[in-house]
């Protein structure tokens, strides 16, 4: 299991979390290499359907990172993000997909240390959970 290098996708909003990632870079804050960032303007752009697609495509974990509540550049985009992902995590749980594979978190443009920590912690979590083999996991009657 220790050899497992998870493949992780992070959605970052342009104004806070992406900027935090940049600042973590400027501060040379070492992080695991597992996380790749897709930039969106606001965390409110991230459809839970994107996460379904990522899991279906074998991505091991998905981060959705926005501005803190109250700080969203678009005032309340992240309010919706929060509600959507709270409910979506529950749904994953009901379906037997470990909700720890997705994580919604906030990082302001100044929170480089916090950002690096989120990346590191989440990578650890996914390492513990092991690879996303949902697609191959279930033995099929039909197979």
């Amino acid at each position, binding site marked *: 299991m220790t050899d497992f290098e998870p493949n992780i996708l992070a959605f970052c909003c342009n104004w806070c979390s992406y900027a935090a990632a940049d600042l973590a870079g400027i501060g040379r804050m070492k992080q695991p290499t597992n996380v790749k960032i897709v930039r969106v303007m606001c965390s409110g752009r991230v459809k839970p*359907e994107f996460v379904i697609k990522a899991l279906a495509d074998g991505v091991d974990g998905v981060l959705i990172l926005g501005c803190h509540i109250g700080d969203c550049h678009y005032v309340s985009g992240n309010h919706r993000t929060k509600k959507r992902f709270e409910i979506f995590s*529950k749904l994953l749980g*009901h*379906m*037997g997909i470990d909700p720890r594979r997705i994580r919604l978190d906030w990082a302001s443009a100044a929170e480089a240390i916090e950002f690096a920590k989120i990346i590191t912690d989440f990578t650890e979590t996914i390492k513990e959970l092991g690879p996303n083999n949902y*697609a191959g996991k279930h033995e*099929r009657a039909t197979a």
Partner: protein
Amino acid sequence: MNEQLREVVKGLFARDEVEVVVSLKLNEGCVAPHMYSKEDDLSSMVHSPKYPIGIVVSMIQKKYPDTKIGVVIRGCDERILIELAKRNQVNLDNIVLVGIACTEEDAKDCLCETPFPTKIDIGEKVEGITTDENIEKISQMDMDERFDYWMGQFDKCMKCYGCVYACPTCICENCILEEDMWVKTGELPPEFPSFHLIRAYHSTDRCVDCHECERACPAHIPLVTLYRMIRKDVEDMFGYKIGTDVNEKPPLVTVLEEEG
């Protein structure tokens, strides 16, 4: 009970409360939705079996937006109309409801929690079924068991889209489940339950517990079990009860409460 129904409808016509009434018609042994007008013979009007009439109403209203329509409904039909109204598919202002309470058998058949509308014109109210063995069973399972359980079910899915088309609150003209970029088309059984995850996610703020999807499913997949589990969460987390108040906005489109 059919007699009683016809009497109520006659009353509506007599008082000029409505111009037409949408109900079910028995025709050569078949029951289908029908739009009755004042002059029509009402003797063919029946209230059973259950039929999701909301979509028909929506179609009629799109064509005749100003007509006052009477609609014969059950508990689930009312919830359907309310959810459709929230999404601008029907206009409740021009609708007069004739409420039918479902029988105990009906309720059991649908495992229905609320087998009656707010205002009952016909029939006696019976208590809803609040327990669901399937949900209890799944709740006991660990993650892997749940996944296996559901995949065992979804393996049976033949992507006939019966559930989507039967669902009265699935109103999208363009269903993303039919788009290759979201759900790989032409692939069975599904590797990953994208189809059912997306459908369940879309049901979170609109599934009215009518069971039409399950009735339509040739594979007998207990879809409503999943939708109920998530709907319960929506109720607990956001205090949102689907199909009760047309003025209540679905929680996923509104801002967080604490923040105003």
